[in-house]
C-alpha cells in the first residue's frame, strides 16, 4: 500500500460566534461553531480522496486547514512526514508550491482585470520565479496540461472571454503551474453545466494518472465521487462518520447516515426504484451539536441511551473501512 502524503490527527477548528449586544447581556459565555471537531484520516500518495457531506458539515474548513490557510485550534497535520500544524508562515511559504487549491466558483476566483497569462503566472511570481523565459514556458505547459490548446490562443484573453469550463481549467492551470504534490479541489464543478463537467473531472483523473498528483476532492455529490475518487470520508457536523474506499462506502454503506445519504441521491434511470427518504428533519446547529453521536437526533437505527450519551469513535472494521457508530464493534 502506498504511503500517506497527508495525515490528519484529531484536527479541530472552532470559530467564535459573534454575538449581538443583547445576547452578550444574557450570557457572557463565548459560543463556538464546531466546524471541524476532531477528525483523523490519511490521504495516500496519488489518490483522489473525497470529502463528502451536506452543507455546513466542515468540508471547506478541513480543506483550508490542510493548506494552512487558517490556523487549526487543535490537532496535527502531517505533510510528507513533517508536522506542519503550527509552523510559521515563513516556513509555510516554501511548502506552498507543493500545496494548491481550486475553488468552486470559476467566476469569482479569477481576477477579471488580468489576462490568462498573468493569472496562471501569479503563483510563480509569489514563489520568486521571475525569469521571463522560465515563467512563460511553465505557463504554456500548465495550459497545455489542462488542454487549453493551442495555449497562444488563450494567453491574452480575459476571464470574461472564456466559457465557464475554460475558466475553471484556467483555475486548474494556475494550481498546476508549480507542479504541486497535493491539490485541494473544493466543489470544482458545481457551478458548471453538466455537459462540460466531465471535462474538468477527467482532467483531474488524467493528472492523477500522468503526474501522480494527489487530490482532496470536496463535494456534496456522491454520484460524482463514486466515479472519480478512490477513497471517501463522509462528514456530519464536523465529524467523520464513515471512511473507506469509494466502492465499499457507497455500494455498501455501514453508517445509518451514509445509508440515508446514498438513498437520497436521485438516480438518472427511471426503471430504478425511487429513493425513499428514511430520515427526517435537517442538520442541527454546529454551535451546540447533539450529545453522544451527533446523528442520534435523526437516526433511524437509534439503539438506546448509548447513542445519546456516548460519542462513538471512528473504529476500524476490517479492510480499509472505518465507521463511527455504536452498531458496530465493541468499544472498551
Amino acid at each position, binding site marked *: 500500500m502506498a504511503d500517506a502524503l497527508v495525515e490528519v490527527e484529531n484536527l479541530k477548528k472552532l470559530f467564535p460566534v459573534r454575538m449581538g449586544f443583547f445576547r452578550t447581556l444574557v450570557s457572557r459565555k463565548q459560543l463556538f461553531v464546531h466546524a471541524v471537531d476532531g477528525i483523523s484520516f490519511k490521504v495516500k500518495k496519488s489518490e483522489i480522496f473525497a470529502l463528502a457531506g451536506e452543507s455546513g458539515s466542515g468540508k471547506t474548513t478541513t480543506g483550508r486547514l490542510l493548506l494552512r490557510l487558517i490556523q487549526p485550534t487543535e490537532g496535527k497535520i502531517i505533510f510528507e512526514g513533517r508536522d506542519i500544524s503550527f509552523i510559521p508562515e515563513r516556513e509555510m511559504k516554501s511548502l506552498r508550491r507543493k500545496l494548491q487549491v481550486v475553488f468552486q466558483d470559476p467566476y469569482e476566483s479569477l481576477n477579471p482585470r488580468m489576462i490568462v497569462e498573468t493569472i496562471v503566472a501569479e503563483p510563480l511570481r509569489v514563489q520568486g520565479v521571475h525569469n521571463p523565459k522560465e515563467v512563460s514556458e511553465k505557463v504554456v505547459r500548465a495550459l497545455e496540461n489542462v488542454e487549453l490548446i493551442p495555449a497562444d490562443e488563450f494567453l491574452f484573453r480575459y476571464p470574461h472571454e472564456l466559457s465557464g469550463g475554460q475558466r475553471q481549467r484556467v483555475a486548474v492551470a494556475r494550481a498546476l503551474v508549480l507542479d504541486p504534490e497535493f491539490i485541494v479541489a473544493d466543489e470544482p464543478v458545481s457551478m458548471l453545466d453538466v455537459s462540460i463537467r*466531465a471535462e474538468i473531472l477527467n482532467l483531474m483523473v488524467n493528472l492523477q494518472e500522468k503526474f501522480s498528483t494527489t487530490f482532496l476532492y470536496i463535494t456534496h455529490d456522491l454520484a460524482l465521487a*463514486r466515479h472519480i475518487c478512490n477513497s471517501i470520508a463522509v462528514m456530519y457536523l464536523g465529524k467523520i462518520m464513515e471512511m473507506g474506499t469509494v466502492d465499499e462506502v457507497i455500494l455498501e454503506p455501514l453508517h445509518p447516515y451514509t445509508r440515508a445519504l446514498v438513498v437520497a441521491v436521485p*438516480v438518472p434511470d427511471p426503471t430504478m426504484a425511487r429513493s425513499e427518504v428514511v430520515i427526517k428533519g435537517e442538520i442541527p446547529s454546529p454551535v451546540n451539536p447533539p450529545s453522544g453521536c451527533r446523528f442520534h437526533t435523526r437516526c433511524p437505527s437509534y439503539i438506546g441511551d448509548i447513542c445519546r450519551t456516548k460519542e462513538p469513535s471512528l473504529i476500524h472494521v476490517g479492510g480499509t473501512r472505518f465507521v463511527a457508530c455504536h452498531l458496530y464493534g465493541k468499544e472498551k
Partner: protein
Amino acid sequence: MSAVLQVENLTTFYTTLRGPVRAAENVTFNVGKGEALGLVGESGCGKTTVALSILKLLPSNGKIVRGKILFEGKDIVKIKDKEFRQEIRWKGISIVFQGAMNALNPVFKVGDQVSEAIKIHEPRMKKEEINERVAKLFELVGLDPGRADNYPHEFSGGMRQRALIAMSLACNPALLISDEPCTALDVIVASQVLKLLREIKEKLNLGMILISHDLSIVAETCEKMGIMYAGMLAEYGNVMDTFKKPLHPYTQGLISAFPSIKGERTRMVSIPGIPPDLLNPPTGCRFHPRCKYAMDICIKKEPSWWNVEKGRYVRCWLYEKG
C-alpha cells in the same frame, strides 16, 4: 387523460440593445391532470422563460411573439393581464420559483403569508375558515401547523421550501410549476421535497411542470419529459422511453454525462463545445456545432418537430425524412 395545459409553438423573445434574444422558440408540449412533465436542459436554454410565459410574468422586455397556451382549453396568450391575474394566477396555475428560499417576506409570520395568499383570491372567506385552510395546507406539506406563528428566519431551508409549496397550493390550482425546487437544498432535504411534490400531485390530481437541470430528478419525479437546447425542445416523450432509447444526439450526450451512483464506475463523457448565444444562434439545427452526426442539411435547414412514434417527438435530421 385530459390536458390541463397545451402549449403550441410558444415563441418568446427578449428585446435587448444588441438585438432580440430568442429564448424560446416553437416549444410544444402538453400536461395532463395528475401528470408531471419535466423540463430539462442546461443553464440559459429557456426553461424559466417558458414558465414565465405560461404565467404571464415575463419582464417588460420579454414578449410572446407566436404560439398558443391553452389552459383548460382557453388561450391565455390572448386574454388580458387583469383577467389572468384575477381568474387564473394562483387559482388555476401557480408557481414555486427558482431560488425561492428567500421569497418569503422576513417581517411577516409564515402562516399569515399563506392566509394572505388565500384572502387575495377568496376575499369573502371567513377568518376561521382561512385559519383552518392554512392548518390543512401546513399538514399537507408536512409542516407542523403549530409553527404557523413562526417567522421565516425561524424555519430551515427545507421548511421554507415547504411553506412556499403550501402557498402555491393555497387556491387549489390545477397546474403547479416548480422551477428548480431543489437547488440550494441538501440531498436529503431535496429528496424529502421531491417526495412531497409527488405526493401532492397524486393526492390533488395536479398537473405539474418540474423545471430542472438535473436529469435524475426528472427520472424520479416525472412521467413525461422535454429536453430543451438553446431555446428549443430537442426531444419530448415519456420518461421511460426517453431514457431507454434517447433519440436526439443531445439527449444521448446529456444522459451519458450524468453519473449514476449505482452501477459500474466509469469515465464520464462530456459533450464537446458549449451552448450557443441566443442572440445569434447557429443556423439550421442549433445543436449542429456540437453534434457528432452533423450532416450538410443540419447546417442549412432547421429540422421540424418530427413525430417519431406515438407521443414522441424529436427535432433532428437523423429521423426526419427530408
